[in-house]
């Protein structure tokens, strides 16, 4: 074990013995140091240390052998010490052994007489060292195992997913806190428990029964399982012990995917809504073209023209809907870049009003704009094109849903820390039951007044999102046949 030579310290006041020992022991392959008295011996021992054997003369001037043995033993538990004495008595031998000596060698001695005891002593020391090392190692490992086990337990306990471990006898042998919480009947179940104790979960039990068998191959089996209102993704994998080919059971991990499923459903609902909203105008356009091409629109050029015009309106609305949809998607994914600059909202509202003048004129609607309060009180940090689209949309809506010769009144005013823009009309209004829905995607009031009015059902949705992106608020007040008032509040910008 020790690659380096065993070291021996010889302490004796007789130089003949010192040197004799040195020469003979060095020839035997030992590394030897000598000291002439107790003090020198102790000093050398302290300096060089790690001696396998010390030969110590009992009678020395100054510090005697017994004292030295005692001092060395305090320093080193493992060194093998022999007493060398010319006055060998039972008493001194016992005394020396008590102090920690391994044996004694009577003077005078021949070299051969010391080789064997030294050899045995070294063997004994090595054995003791090895035992000590093994004991230490074992203690370390036990500590490590305890630590690892408690670490694993902690991790399993703190997992948000429910964990069940099932043995080959279909018994639940382990469950974590999440499993107790989320799996009905699992909370106070004494373990080990038969799988069938979880009576409500026959679907899972069948599944687990299939998987917790010896020939269950490594891999993961996943299944969606509904427990009451909750939907779980259950992943089951075999418990494979090292070096064993067959499975000892199964680990089932329960992940609550209810919210995920809800999102998935909402998403597919939305997609089918979009599909429907796209299909409707396309159907109309196809229907009109079909009428014209099949000669059903007659030879009357005016009738054909009307049908083409209606088709064009529907095509335009569809295109507008698609771009609004793209805006909405961009806003949802955070890809919508709004460039905010200080804006005079009254300027943007004026531009939006102007853009609607022609439509108002067509229906002989009185479209008016008024800006109240002192100038410069209408500055908002906002994206100009987004703001334009919000107000153009509101004014356009007001004109669309107001009968001919009606009134649309746009007003910009100051309201504390907000700029307030009001769009008031005396049009068809909104049913009380539909007021909450008008900002929803694709919602359109459908009645005899609205049947002819083209709309995407997204304009107000986009407007609300835009206003929201600017930390503003949009509200509506309305009564059927009385008109509607849409109000937008935007935080005023202060330099």
């Amino acid at each position, binding site marked *: 074990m020790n690659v380096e030579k065993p070291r021996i310290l010889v302490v004796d006041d007789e130089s003949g013995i010192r040197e004799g020992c040195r020469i003979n022991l060095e020839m035997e392959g030992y590394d030897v140091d000598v000291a002439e008295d107790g003090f020198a011996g102790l000093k050398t021992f302290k300096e060089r240390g790690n001696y396998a054997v010390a030969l110590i003369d009992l009678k020395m001037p100054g510090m005697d052998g017994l004292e030295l043995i005692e001092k060395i033993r305090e320093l080193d538990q493992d060194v093998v010490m022999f007493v060398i004495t010319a006055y060998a008595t039972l008493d001194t031998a016992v005394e020396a052994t008590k102090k920690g000596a391994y044996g004694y060698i009577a003077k005078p001695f021949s070299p051969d007489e010391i080789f064997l005891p030294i050899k045995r002593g070294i063997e004994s020391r090595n054995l003791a060292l090895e035992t000590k090392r093994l004991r230490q190692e074992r203690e370390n490992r036990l500590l490590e195992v305890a630590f690892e086990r408690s670490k694993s337990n902690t991790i399993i306990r703190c997992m948000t997913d429910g964990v069940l471990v099932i043995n080959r006898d279909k018994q639940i042998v382990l469950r974590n806190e999440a499993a107790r919480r989320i799996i009905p009947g699992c909370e106070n179940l004494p373990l080990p428990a038969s799988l069938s104790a979880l009576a409500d979960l026959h679907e899972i039990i069948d599944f687990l029964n299939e998987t917790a068998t010896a020939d269950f191959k490594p891999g993961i089996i996943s299944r969606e399982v509904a427990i009451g209102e909750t939907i779980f993704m259950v992943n089951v994998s075999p418990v494979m012990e090292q070096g064993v080919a067959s499975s000892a059971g199964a680990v089932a991990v329960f992940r609550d995917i209810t919210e995920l499923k809800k999102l998935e459903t909402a998403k597919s609902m939305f997609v089918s809504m979009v599909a429907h909203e796209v299909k409707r105008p396309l159907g*109309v356009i196809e229907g009109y073209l079909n009428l014209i091409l099949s000669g059903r629109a007659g030879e009357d050029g005016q009738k054909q023209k009307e*049908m083409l015009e209606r088709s064009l309106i529907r095509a335009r609305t569809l295109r507008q809907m698609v771009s609004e949809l793209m805006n909405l998607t961009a806003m949802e994914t955070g890809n919508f870049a709004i460039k905010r600059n200080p804006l005079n909202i009254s300027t943007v509202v004026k531009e939006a009003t102007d853009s609607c003048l022609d439509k108002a004129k067509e229906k002989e609607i009185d479209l008016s704009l008024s800006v109240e309060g002192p100038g410069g009180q209408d500055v908002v940090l906002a994206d100009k094109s987004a703001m334009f689209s919000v107000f153009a949309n509101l004014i356009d809506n007001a004109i669309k849903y107001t009968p001919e010769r009606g009134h649309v009144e746009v007003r910009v005013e100051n309201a504390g820390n907000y700029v307030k823009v009001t769009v008031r009309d005396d049009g068809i209004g909104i049913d009380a039951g539909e007021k909450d829905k008008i900002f929803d995607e694709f919602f359109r009031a459908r009645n005899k007044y609205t049947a002819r009015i083209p709309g995407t059902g997204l304009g107000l949705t986009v407007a609300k999102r835009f206003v929201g992106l600017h930390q503003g608020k949009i509200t509506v007040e309305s009564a059927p046949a009385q008109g509607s008032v849409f109000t937008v509040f935007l935080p005023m910008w202060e330099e």
Partner: protein
Amino acid sequence: MSEQGPLIVIVDDDFDSLEIIRNILEPAGYKTLCFTEPMEALQHMAIEKPRLIITDLMMKFIDTGFAFSRQIRFDSRFSNIPIILITAAFSQRRFAVQPQDKRGLEKMGIDAFFDKPVDPDDLLGKVQELLGQSGKEQGK
């Protein structure tokens, strides 16, 4: 517009859809009355009984068309009037509105189903079939 043609009531909340169906039926000799609201159609039907009803499904609420056709089916005055459902209906999980067969139609209380946009010849053929011999005579 032939005053003598059999009366067909058309209900759809989309003006253009009404126009398209009206322009299919009128040149074929049918008299049509168009409504954007089912309630108004029902009120008029009490005065003038149609020979056939064509309705959309997606009106205001998802099942307004169903409610309308059920109302007609349970009304002894109208229960024998054939109903054709034309819709841009969507189907999705747990909500498949398109009837797959005759039993599906019966279940929904309707006599025929068309996807939008309807092919004019298909619609006319079905109208004639449902109106029977008299329908054929009135047709062009």
